[in-house]
């Protein structure tokens, strides 16, 4: 017997009055896998996630957790899920420890040891009142509550929002460990690099429609990215002439800007011979990705 995927959505659709919020979205997340959920603001990522959590009902289609329809199943189906909402609402008068204790008691599960361990890793002071915390610290509380009961499914809506790079790194480790233990993760973001770093597959939503669902390795534009090379002396692009995969875009002062496709090694070796000092590669905007998708036959409505 083939076991059901950890998360499955079938033609999930949500109408808000006469406007279509989510349009027939279908995808699956298997145990041990992280699927990145990409899309600009308002593309429907949060709506899909809230339908998965049973907070809103689909107009048509359905969402399943281990084969159980979340809209019609008993609430116990949610015992397996850790959820971090995009807009985090916590009980501000409680301390983080009181909040974790409250959630553990509501779940009828003793998860305080793990909550404390996760808090230590994220450098979260659990004795502080939530109302007195900064946005980033509250986000840590949100992350801990999502992971504290060792869920088999994680639904994380922009989990690293507000976290500093050190804490983000620790979050990455916690997420990888959860996946290694078999958890299925759906993680939304509008930062491409984050999804590339954390996910094996990516689902891309635009204007409520799933425009791509593929391995991260197959993301359009992944093979080619922009680089700016800065040299000790005046830039001389002849060093880079004929380097496989490199295409020169501009050259001025000490800087050369171009795109590189495939391995960056030949470009870097050539540039080092020419006196390379620094390499920068700007964050690729999602628009670039969407243009790539449209170019591949995807559509934007």
């Amino acid at each position: 017997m083939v076991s059901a995927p950890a998360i499955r959505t079938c033609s999930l659709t949500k109408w808000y009055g006469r406007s279509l919020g989510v349009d027939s979205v279908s995808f699956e997340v298997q145990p041990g896998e992280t699927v990145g959920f990409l899309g600009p603001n308002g593309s429907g990522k949060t709506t899909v996630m809230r339908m998965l959590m049973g907070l809103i009902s689909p107009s048509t289609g359905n969402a399943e957790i281990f084969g159980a329809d979340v809209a019609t199943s008993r609430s116990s189906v949610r015992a397996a899920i850790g959820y971090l909402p995009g807009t985090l609402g916590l009980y501000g008068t409680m301390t983080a420890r009181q909040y974790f204790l409250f959630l553990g008691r509501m779940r009828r599960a003793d998860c305080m040891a793990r909550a404390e361990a996760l808090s230590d890793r994220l450098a979260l002071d659990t004795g502080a009142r939530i109302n007195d915390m900064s946005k980033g610290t509250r986000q840590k509380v949100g992350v801990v509550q999502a992971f504290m009961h060792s869920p088999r499914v994680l639904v994380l809506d922009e989990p690293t929002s507000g976290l500093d790079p050190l804490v983000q790194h620790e979050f990455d480790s916690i997420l990888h460990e959860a996946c290694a233990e078999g958890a299925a993760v759906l993680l939304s973001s509008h930062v491409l690099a984050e999804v590339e770093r954390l996910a094996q597959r990516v689902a891309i939503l635009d204007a409520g429609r799933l425009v791509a669902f593929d391995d991260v390795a197959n993301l359009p534009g992944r093979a080619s990215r922009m680089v700016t090379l800065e040299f000790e002396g005046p830039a001389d692009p002849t060093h880079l002439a004929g380097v496989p995969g490199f295409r020169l875009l501009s050259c001025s002062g000490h800087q050369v800007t171009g795109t590189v496709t495939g391995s960056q090694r030949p470009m870097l070796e050539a540039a080092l011979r020419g006196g390379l000092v620094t390499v920068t590669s700007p964050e690729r905007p999602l628009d670039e990705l969407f243009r790539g998708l449209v170019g591949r036959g995807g559509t934007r409505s």
Partner: protein
Amino acid sequence: MRFHLPLLARVFHERWRGLAGWVTGLVSLVAVQVAVYPTIRDSREGWSDLTEQFPEAIRKIIRMEDYTSPAGYLTTELFSFMFPLIFTGVACSWAARAGAEEEENGTADILLSLPVSRGSILFTRLVAVFVALAGVCVAGIASLAVGTRSVDMDVGTAGIAAATVSCALLGTVFASASLVAAAWTGRRGVGLGTGLGLAVVLFVAYSLAPLVGFFDRILALNPYQWTIGQSPLADGIDPALALVALLTITVLCVVAQAGFSRRDIRA
């Protein structure tokens, strides 16, 4: 229906100060009114002359009968208006929060992502409303029992309890209306407005019933008539009418559950 003690404890942890404020107000009111009574009793004839000069319409509207007797005084000063007002205020405020507070504060997303049903969440919040009202009831009965004895008012504790519970029952009817509106809309203001608005409209209809034929014909449908309209201080609670009030509360709570269990929760 599952009940969540941690959620009940959290509600009281957040709201005990507000409840203490209501209780303090109620006990202070009782203290003032009871303390004034000996003055009324000692000048009975003067008060009787004065109240007899009130226009008949006013006397009917405020159901003023024998103002200088202990029962008449307490009915006019506390059980006809102030106690119903306080109980309705507490009940509607707590019920509106029960139906919409988590959603308005943005805490509903995590709470409802737990492996507990929405019905059990609302049920627990409803229990919190009843516990809060029971607390106010006990404070009202105890302060009146002590107060009336300290100034030798000849009123039985059973009568005091019946009149206070009648006021609480009345408040709970309006609280149920608040709960329905809050649970269906996710808005506390709508819930509070619905319960209090209904309380005011029905109070006007109840008060004017002796003077306006239409209001008199529909008096049997008015929750004020089911509860404080039955002279509970003297005659106790009318079981049949109390049952009507309880059934109304039950039906409204079921309607609130139906709305809360099905509708979309705002982010």
